[in-house]
């Protein structure tokens, strides 16, 4: 996030795209709704009629997978009317001429035809976002989990830069991070191309720094494998040893039957986790880890804030923190990683870092600290790119062309399936093992529009077979206006009916993020089990 979370409450316009905020980031949705109560305009851009629409001024229901065309179309309207922020563009940005050329390719009528949003509504939205200040653009995985994910993100940034909505309080580009420490895992360099704080493995200076800091000559300067390539490497035999820490990959990766083939094929597999799950049966060795309740350390949230995690339960005698496990393994491989406590890991990281250098556990003890925080006197950074001074110098426009999703619906698989999280659950194990949560939402429902359901003679509650080219599951039907005609929706929480049996292993070419948000399916009725929904409720039938 270029802004901080609480700033959302001060926005005059919230442009939410591809974010089911009330379910995936509930507390951020409270701030959005508080802003609406204070008079802000909330524009929800989502193919589904998500619960956030109940508080929206405008719901733009663009078609699944058309974000780039829709955003380019908005930019075209802004430009045609001269509503852009010329001062910001000329003083703070670069590559505008190329951007303009791409914008010219998307006249409103053409964009409208692709994304299915009427020109009048697009014009209204363009007018609102260019005539109000501050404007907070928020997005989540609805933007990134596409084969065009990188282009979708760039288009969000292009729009906000064109309007000068950057580097100000409550005004910026705000990706709401899905998991508690997904920001931190990236910041810590659990990525194939960078050490922590984004120091590149291909940079000779960084390599030299870590060879010295780690007392380990000969570090690799070759880019490592991203997850989908790792999995394919298990099948091809390039990957022989696979260490899976804290992820139930069998359920969370797309195209489950492919994932399982990979896990079966790999020669030696280690799992370090807290639960027996759908992945552990494939492991050759299993290590029991401490969980959130038993370990000490830090998480980094969406707004780059480093926050303390403190143990509150006494661990079982066999639980170990992951840093301890790899420290012990490294010793047996002849290398001393030198970790003695969780804090010793932190201190080493800090001293070899850049934007984290000024952050000690003590300094973030109460409310945390936001990076960049380069030294011990620095008080952290609440919003990035202040006054249009981008971290990288000038903000570069990155024009993007629209292309459709990898798998479009056809005669055999006529419906689009999108997937995600529900309010009541998180991933696959934690909430399903928390008392009471499973009582509120205990089995999977495929959300289907009343029009499609009627055509398929499906009633609320009926069991249906859902099939894609990759597999088939049986789930109950939730006939609901949350789904537009032609679009169904599933979560990946339930091993009994997991959306990832069906999803496609097609990836964004740059990030290799899978297209969880779009694949083609067919739905047929399996058995009747109808129930009547007596009242409209949030997030459940």
């Amino acid at each position, binding site marked *: 996030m270029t802004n901080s*979370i609480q700033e959302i409450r001060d926005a005059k316009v919230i442009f939410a795209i591809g974010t089911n905020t*009330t379910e995936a*980031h509930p507390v951020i949705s*409270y701030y959005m709704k508080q802003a609406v109560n204070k008079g802000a305009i909330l524009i929800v851009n989502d193919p589904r009629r998500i619960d956030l629409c109940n*508080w929206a001024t405008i719901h733009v229901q663009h078609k699944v997978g058309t974000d780039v065309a829709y955003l380019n179309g908005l930019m075209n309207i802004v430009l045609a009317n001269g509503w852009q922020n010329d001062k910001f563009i000329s003083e703070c940005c670069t590559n505008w001429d190329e951007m303009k050329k791409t914008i010219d390719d998307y006249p409103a009528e053409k964009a409208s035809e692709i994304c299915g949003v009427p020109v009048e509504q697009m014009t209204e939205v363009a007018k609102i976002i260019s005539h109000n200040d501050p404007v907070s653009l928020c997005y989540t995985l609805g933007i990134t989990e596409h084969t065009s994910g990188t282009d979708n993100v760039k288009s969000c940034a292009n729009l906000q830069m064109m309007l000068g909505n950057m580097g100000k309080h409550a005004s910026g580009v705000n990706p709401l991070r*899905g998991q*508690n*420490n997904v920001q931190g895992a990236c910041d810590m*360099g659990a990525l*194939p191309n960078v*050490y922590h704080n984004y120091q590149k493995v291909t940079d000779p200076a960084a390599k030299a720094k870590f060879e010295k800091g*780690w007392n*380990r000559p000969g570090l*690799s300067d*070759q880019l*490592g*494998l*991203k*997850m989908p390539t790792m999995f394919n490497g298990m099948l091809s035999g390039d*990957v*022989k040893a*696979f260490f899976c820490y*804290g*992820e139930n*990959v069998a359920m969370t990766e797309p195209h489950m039957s492919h994932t399982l083939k990979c896990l079966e094929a790999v020669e*030696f597999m280690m799992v370090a986790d807290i639960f*027996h799950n759908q992945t552990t049966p494939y*492991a050759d*060795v*299993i*290590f029991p880890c401490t*969980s*959130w309740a038993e*370990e000490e350390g830090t*998480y*980094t*949230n*969406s707004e780059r*804030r480093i926050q*303390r995690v*403190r143990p509150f339960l006494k661990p*079982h005698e*066999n639980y170990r923190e*992951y840093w301890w496990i*790899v420290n012990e*393994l*490294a010793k047996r491989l002849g290398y001393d*990683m030198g970790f003695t406590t969780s804090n010793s890991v932190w201190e080493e990281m800090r001293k070899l870092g850049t934007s984290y250098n000024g952050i000690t556990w003590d300094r973030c003890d109460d409310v945390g600290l936001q990076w960049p925080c380069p030294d011990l006197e620095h008080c952290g950074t609440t919003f990035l790119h202040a006054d249009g001074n981008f971290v990288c110098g000038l903000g570069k426009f990155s024009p993007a062309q629209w292309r459709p999703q990898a798998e479009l619906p056809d005669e055999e698989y006529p419906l689009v399936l999108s997937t995600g999280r529900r*309010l*009541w*659950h998180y991933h696959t194990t934690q909430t399903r093992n928390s*008392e*009471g*949560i499973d*009582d509120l939402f205990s089995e999977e429902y495929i959300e289907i529009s009343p029009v499609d359901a009627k055509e398929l003679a499906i009633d609320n509650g009926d069991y249906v077979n859902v099939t894609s080219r990759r597999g088939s599951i049986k789930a109950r039907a939730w006939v609901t206006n949350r789904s537009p005609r032609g679009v169904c929706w599933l979560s990946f929480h339930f091993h009994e009916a997991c959306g990832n049996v069906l999803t496609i292993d097609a990836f964004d070419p740059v990030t*290799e*993020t899978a297209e969880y948000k779009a694949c083609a399916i067919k739905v047929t009725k399996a058995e009747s089990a109808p129930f009547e929904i*007596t*009242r409209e409720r949030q*997030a459940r039938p």
Partner: protein
Amino acid sequence: MVKLTIDGIKVEAKSGDTILSAAKKAGIQIPTLCHVKGLPAQGACRICLVEVEGARGLMAACSTPVVADSVVETSSEKVIKARKLVLELLLSEGDHDCIICEANGDCKLQKMAYEYGVSNTDLKYKGEKRAAVKDTSSRFIIRDGTKCILCNKCVLACNSRGVHGILYKNERGFSSKIVSDDCELSDSGCVYCGECIQVCPTGALYEKKRVGKGRSWELDKVDTTCPYCGVGCQLTVHVDSKNNRPVKVTGRYTTPNEGMLCVKGRFAYDFPLSDKRITSPMIKKNGEHVQVSWDEALDYTAGRLKEIIEKHGPDSYAGVSCARSTNENNYAAMKFARAAIGTNNIDHCART
């Protein structure tokens, strides 16, 4: 700036400030039951009554703006008498049996009754009690109308903080009550954020999962960060350390969540106690997972890794780290791949 005198102390306040906030700035505590920090005053509970020189009656400090040169008394005899009366009336219309109340020790009404010496077994007013029901229908939140003092804080929390619009006050006067939509809580659109519980000054709203699991003074409080989405809500886990179990969770009034939580942060805290936890290192022997010691598991793994690296090189290793775990564990995962194994094949689930 407005200058006034509170309890003999000269106080400066901004024009438009209330007597309550001006007094607070001067270090003078005025008791409240219906006031929610950061939200408009309600003037509902009348416990914050103060004496303002020249005024006809006592004034509610939370909703009376400061006036220049006024003289305010916050604990005069008249004020104390009025507060006692308010407390007696509040106690008389409900069933405030503290003995088995979950809020015992954590209840503002109880604390005030104790401070002002008002007993609920020796009340002057023995009139009719409000007809109130206990709604135990929902999985997480119990609403006990018999302990409700109609302070309206839960309604404000639901409508102005979480902005869910489920709770509201129905009917008028003696038959007033707080309702959820127009049905039991379990049938309503409630999303169980639990903000109503957090602001409730009595035992009228409490967590179903905590019932019978310990009194507030027996619980240790540990501040930590929520393990769910990327908001990073700050929360306090109330722990029964003797029995090694969490009893309830409350939100901390700090950045970024200002006390607010969602259903997962507030109620999905007990997965660490699940019997599906892995409790021993295991090695697959003849297709079966067999429990082994830590040393055996580590020696075996290191042996296999050595073998594979020698035969196929370090790039035949691939590691996936965990976006739900700590920064420290993620740093360790990447250092292990890069320094101990010698490969950049390290990634995590944010990718896909």
